[in-house]
């Protein structure tokens, strides 16, 4: 076990954990953050996506030690019910979600896309989300939601 300092959603959090543990379990079980989800543990589905230093990472396959002193942003960190992020607003407006389990990954991947490419084409959106799996079939709505968010002001 080791004491590890993490910067999550702008706050410094210190956890006592196995440094080999994947970041996902620390976020969910130690820090009580529910946004990132366990989907496969193999970096194949995208449900666990968080943003580290401006890039998406798969928290299910990133050891917590790697995340030490890096800037981690989770779904909870980009907006709230009172002050939703444009992407969160757009996903609700487009009713883009059924079971919603994949939405964390969709929104986090879309955020990194929009941060770099504020007005993406449909092809760019689909490419940015190609490694995020959705089983309910909300894809068309998700694409529309990302497009809509691009037109909204933060």
């Amino acid at each position, binding site marked *: 076990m080791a004491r590890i300092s993490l910067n999550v959603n702008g706050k410094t959090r210190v956890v006592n954990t*196995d440094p080999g543990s994947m970041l996902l379990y620390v976020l969910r079980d130690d820090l009580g953050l529910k946004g990132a*989800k366990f989907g496969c543990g193999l970096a194949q589905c995208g449900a666990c996506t968080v943003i580290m230093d401006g890039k998406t990472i798969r928290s299910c396959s990133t050891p917590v030690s790697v995340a030490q002193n890096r800037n981690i942003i989770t779904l909870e960190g980009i907006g709230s019910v009172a002050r939703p992020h444009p992407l*969160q607003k757009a996903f609700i407006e487009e009713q883009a979600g*059924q079971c*919603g389990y994949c939405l964390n990954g969709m929104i986090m991947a879309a955020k990194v896309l929009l941060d770099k490419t504020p007005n993406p084409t449909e092809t760019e959106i689909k490419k940015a*989300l190609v490694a995020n799996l959705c*089983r309910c*079939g909300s894809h068309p*709505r998700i694409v529309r939601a990302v497009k809509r968010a691009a037109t909204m002001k933060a």
Partner: protein
Amino acid sequence: MRDRSLSRRQFLKGTGALIVSFSFSRPASKALAQSKTPFGIEPDPKSLNSWLAIARDGSVTVFTSKVELGTGIETALAQIVAEELDVPFKRIKMDLGDTAKTVDQSSTTGSRTVESAGPQLRQAAAAARQALMNLASKPLGAPVERLTVEDGVVSVIGNPSKSISYAKLIGGKRFNVAISASGSGRQMKLAPEVRAKDPKQYKIVGASMPRMDLPPKVMGRFSYTQDVKVPGMLHGRVVRPPVVTSKPLSVDEDSVKQIPGIVKVVQEGSLVGVVAKTEWAAIQAAKALKVTWSEPATKLPANPDELYALLKNTKSLRDQVIAEKGNPAAALSQAGKTFEAIYHWPFQLHGMIGPSCAVADVRKDRVTIWTGTQGPFRTRKAIAELLGFPEENIRVIYAEGSGCYGRLSPDDVPEDAVVLSRAVGRPVRVQWMREDEHGWEPKGPAQLMLARAGVDAQGKVVAWDFTDRSFVRTAAEGIPLLASRQVGLKPKREGTANGTQGGGEVYAFENQKVGNALIPWMHPDETPLRTCNLRAPGQPARSFASESFMDEIASELKVDPVQFRLRYLTNKRATETLLAAAKKAQWQERPSPAPASSGSTAKGRGIALTHRTGTFVAIVAEVEVDKLSGNVRVNRITVAHDCGLIVNPNGVQAQIEGNAIQGVSRVLMEEVQFDSSGMKNVDWKSYPILTFPDVPDIEIVLLNRPEMRAQGAGEASLGPVPGAVANAIFDATGVRLREAPFTPSRVLAALKAVPA
């Protein structure tokens, strides 16, 4: 799972508050006689308290055993109650699937929730509205006939200043109103004597109300079953053998003792698991635990050929007749032209993105379980049998899982959690890993469809004989699930039918037989190829076969596929649905295949029609086939959909889109791979599903029929997808594919087999 402001138990605790009491059909005291359990009083269907409660702030809580599986039924049911009660939609709160708080309305399966629980809740709400009007009559000094309600406020007609709100009338107190209830589960008739609203007055039902669950879901604030935490909870994982009948010869506890946080290695019967203080430790321990398993008593078929041979040659347990008319055998022997074809459909996954997860807290006298089951009461029964506990001492609390698609009808994981919790005397959370879920989820069974038809000299189909030979569902009601079997419970049934519809019974042929043969499967041993209901059970395969077969005949007769189908449709809704899809897709009338194309890509279109429990769906698929690689891309799916009265158009559209996308994924890509030793593709790389760039454009025509009862929309539109795609590929290439999925290698082989 949202935070619920109002617990029914709080109401039932009896705080000495004023009790409003009167009855429609019998004295309230008699009707409210209820039995006590460790979790309070069992809800009685004949008490309005069991269905609805109104809080001081005017919010309305609805208690239902139906659960939200991602399809949006929670929102639809809330609309129905808001409409009938005349309260704003936003004021409705849904308390779903808690066996201690709800009446068993049967599992959430078969797209039957809006159809069956809808009217039940509508009648409960109508009874509540009537009760509230009666209550308001005295303070308003006017008879009920002179009262009206708007937004939860009762007022005197023509004198709106005389008014009183529901919250003032009853907020925070019990209804204590007896209502009539007869029958049980889906068939339960609730307060039929109370007159409900005329559908012509509907304002909330029929509107695209936004989903109630979506805001917390996109904010990361929603509690899925994976997010449930209870005090003192430990983490568990189960280690599964190649087949369940395999026994652990040795379990080496030393192999995990160095893992920090390990609490216990559990072995009960042939079930082996680990419990640890942290999730990471549990994962590490499950991976590291050395178990030597006995030689499996059962082997799987070595390859698909062996599997399909089993389907073809095994004597059926029983045969179901779906449609029977005239004498198909005689008509076939006299027909001028006969057709015969065999179609193959593989084992496929539900493929929930989040694997199964549950928390169980087993105490001496009571058990509490949080899980994503489709049937909380069904799960309660299974756990009671596993533990030898009375059902009343078990409480199952629904917490939404990740999608479902039929996978959580047999909910395995709470059984694992119960066994581990009992072993350590603490609450235990068990989450399956990806290889557990892919490997051990009960799959959609493989199917073999045999079709024969006879056509007379005038080109009329005079005989139709269709049989689906499908493995039975072995993870079905009344059959012990994985953990139960591993601790020694024996199955008493062989399995249940893999659905019924889609074999061409939607058409009226003079001589017709549509039947299903129930083929026994790997019984009594459980293997990774265990089976259960996968969305629209069996129908995508049957419809693939029957609708392909329709096109095979139409093509041979050189008749346009839409015109050909119209000749055999007698149901007005079926005809209108078919024509609506053709019109929306700008269908060009001509026989298939399309004139041969030069170049390396071929384009085509195909249509298919199905009927499922009261809902008609027609789908046109437009595809592009790369003749060099065999790759098929579905460019556009056009759907016409008639599910009677539409409660929430946007919600129905979402279901159709989901079905179209899942259908394309399943028919183009998905196949469980196996050899005699087990299943081979236990991750997403080896079992890929459709991703964003390959998702087709989807066009939808909704045919609303407000005069009808609402019918299911969760599954029906999956059925026609494979047939429409197969017919479109034939239209593009002139090549008929009779085995799914249409992978590039399979398409290429079929293209090469045909002389150019």
